[in-house]
């Protein structure tokens, strides 16, 4: 792990404390999203192919009463039967204006870090024999996300904001020949917060 990756991890791990320290309204929201991911990027002429499940869970802190600026911290898991699973953390800065009554547009941009695992057990040569290898490699992400959401549904003391999102994140340093490597996520999610 190089210095940049260490700083990135520190930022990602330090962000929750900073977010939780924001004691001014509006309240923090929980953000959960499920969807499908594929190695894909629209501009490359490639095909959305062999999608596999991806799940994110995190927190979102709006900065202002209009709730159109904020920051999200997410942890995610993506299944990768053929190229290995991944655990990821993303810090996203969000611009989410209301397009019309209740219709929320979302644009998110940030940084992420993921541990890319292997689809099978890796081995390495220690100079004398083959031994077990490290289970994963750390890879830097650059995520960008577009979303369309509904603000909001009230049930009891809880406020729900469902949304549909497309996220493209490119992986840097996956391997020299596959960097940057595009990954697309199609997500259905919701943000949830308690009504004050």
């Amino acid at each position, binding site marked *: 792990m190089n210095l940049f990756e260490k700083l990135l991890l520190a930022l990602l791990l330090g962000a929750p404390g900073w977010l939780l320290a924001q004691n001014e309204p509006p309240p923090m929201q929980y953000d959960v999203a499920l969807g499908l991911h594929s190695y894909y990027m629209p501009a490359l002429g490639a095909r959305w192919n062999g999608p596999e499940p991806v799940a994110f869970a995190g927190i979102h802190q709006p900065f202002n009463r209009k709730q159109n600026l904020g920051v999200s911290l997410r942890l995610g898991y993506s*299944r990768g039967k053929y190229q290995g699973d991944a*655990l990821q953390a993303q810090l996203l800065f969000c611009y989410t204006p209301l397009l019309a009554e209740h219709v929320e547009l979302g644009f998110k941009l940030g940084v992420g870090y993921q541990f890319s695992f292997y*689809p099978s057990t890796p081995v390495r040569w220690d*100079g004398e024999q083959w031994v077990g290898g490290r289970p994963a490699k750390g890879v830097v992400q650059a995520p960008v996300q577009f979303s369309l959401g509904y603000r909001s549904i009230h049930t009891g003391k809880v406020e729900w904001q469902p949304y549909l999102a497309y996220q493209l994140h490119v992986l840097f340093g996956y391997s020299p*020949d596959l960097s940057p490597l595009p990954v697309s996520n199609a997500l259905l999610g919701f943000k949830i917060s308690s009504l004050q």
Partner: protein
Amino acid sequence: MKTNLFFLLVLAALLVAGCTKDVYDLPSATPPPAETPANEAHPMKDSIDAIVSRYIAKGIPGIQVAVKSADGWYFANGGYARIEDQSPLSSEMTNWYFSLTKMYTAALTMKEWESENINLDAPITQYLPQEIAAGITSSDRITVKMLLNHTSGIVNLTALPEYQLWQLNRPLEQPTIEERLAMVYGKPLLFEPGTDFSYSNTNFLLLEKILEQVSRHPYESLLRSEILAPLRLQHTYYNLPEGQARQLSFPGYYLDRYANEQLEDVSRWNSALANASNGYGGIAGTSVDAIRFLEALVKGQVVSPASLIQMRTWVQGRESTQPDYGLGLEYYQFAPGQGQGQYGHEGDGIGCTTQVMYVPENDTYLYINCTVGRQIFGPYLFKTTDFKKELCGYVAKWR
């Protein structure tokens, strides 16, 4: 707090549920007993063994070498057939040849030329199905010979991002010929046809379609009737789906995915990729069969002397410092200043690198298979390439 814990538990459950091990494991049969007698007193034995051992000690998982010279056959096997169970390699094992296949496709094309079914200088539009010719940019200015010597300028389909992303998403469900050709349709040429050299698997996929169109026989049938049967190459295969591959004895194939010197078993991926490489890389066989084919080609038992002269007419790219390619044959110079050079072909899959070479100066044939891929830039690219260079250099300079 409870909600946070719930999220973490969901993530952990998904991770555990998702862990599938050895998705690319491909069981293999026990290798048959040796058919080809080896000369254990072969004069190259000690040097070849030393070179193989040196690179096994650097972490190449498996190396197979076969040599045929005036002193007979010699086989060197280093490392393991499978790292997981440390089973030994055998010279009787079948290997995926990958681009060694291009020699066979070129030979089939030359046989059609000899039969006057193909004019090497005619545009490919004359032989390709109309829907394919229409998709290839400037196909009316590209000749059959330009496909054979990679001077067509057509992009290499396996280097395209859409092909590579497909490999990541669906490695065991390879794109069909039509899907692969569609990736190339409408793409601009790399240069004016005939003005430069650029290696492209697309050229040999188009040659397969031309052969099938001209002969009205499937490529596999042509290969069998024109080359495998006459030469009695009984351990050479084409169109070998996974079920049949399991009945043969293949080594395990490995990949350094992250270029960090950690290998994973990619045998099923390598097999699926090879089997879908058609006329540019779809043939499998033993080391003996590969050498026997090249020897028959060199000795004029496959194509005519006139065809062989054409196949050994080398072209050189603008940036190259030495000749690059003939018609389905690669040119090498592993012994500078000693003779005319060597020729044969290399092959590369996701989990292996192969080579077959003929050295005219000492009338020696060499076959190499390393069971780790070198298509990802990294340590294993250098290890396997250095090994091949050193061994080829030794054999090319041997007198």
